[in-house]
């Protein structure tokens, strides 16, 4: 049992020291080990300059009343991103501009 726990304990030790040393919870919080797993070998191309329509153009065609949208307001501009067009790995992130700012629409 102890043998099995050793690698975990060793990995955690530096954080423990940081924690004791700085007395800060944030060190434990943010300095975690980053060990991502590759699922798809190559990144997808970013989605840039997406097509944007007006409420009237989209209403009932791109998106229906009961469907979900991701809504955002930046400055004086509002935009809706229909969730049913954002599912699947190729559509996770939309690089867009709104209200004079560069935004990444994702949820």
């Amino acid at each position, binding site marked *: 049992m102890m043998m099995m726990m050793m690698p975990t304990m060793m990995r955690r030790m530096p954080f423990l020291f940081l924690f004791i040393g700085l007395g800060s919870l944030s060190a434990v919080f943010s300095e975690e080990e980053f060990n991502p797993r590759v699922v798809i070998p190559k990144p997808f191309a970013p989605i840039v300059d997406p097509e944007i329509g007006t*409420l009237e153009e989209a209403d009932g065609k791109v998106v229906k009343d009961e469907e979900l*949208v991701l809504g955002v307001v930046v400055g004086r501009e509002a935009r809706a991103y229909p969730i049913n067009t954002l599912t699947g790995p190729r559509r996770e992130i939309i690089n*867009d501009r709104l209200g004079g700012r560069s935004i990444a629409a994702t949820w």
Partner: protein
Amino acid sequence: MYARKVNDQELNFSVSGMLWRRSLIMIDRETKSLWSHLLGKAMDGTLKGTTLETLPGVITTWKAWKEAQPKTSVLVMSRTAREFVKEFHEQPGRFVLGLRLLHRAKAYPFEALIAQPVINDTFGEDAVLLVYDPDGTGGRAFDRRVKVKNEDRTLQFERGKGKLTDRETRSVWSEEGRCVEGVLKGIELRELPAIPSFAKAWKQFYPETEIYKLPK
């Protein structure tokens, strides 16, 4: 929802093809840094340690959104799903509305939000308000401290007859956190970034997270 300008450079993000703690890793085309989608933070690459500014996005129905924002524009793209994310309603136990403030994280299970659509909570030194829209699946978070005539006041909210009001002044508030009627008219609550997330992924990212429990 993130702002994507870092040190005056506009970044273009995409899906890296990697996962970390069950959640997406993004990559930016400009520096090839790897970013945690949930934390909004560069975990590797030249921008390592940089955190993106989170913008408050809301998930709600199209009907509710277009009524609240009659000048809204809309992303026009082909459909990828016929009817995704009825899941929030059908399996609320799997989702939380996650709130992170400085070094604190707190999760509000959708089950709790459905049972109690207006939550006045205290979270560390912060007084927060969670409002769940029963017609959509939108949940929003606000700071419920306001300044009235240079005086700091903490308000308690409730919903009666479909209207959101504060108990102190009985003023009426919109779902977007703006006071529309009563003595506080014109005052806006500061919206806090609340992220709908899988409960499991949230707990993995924020092992120290508090989890809101309904009062008994």
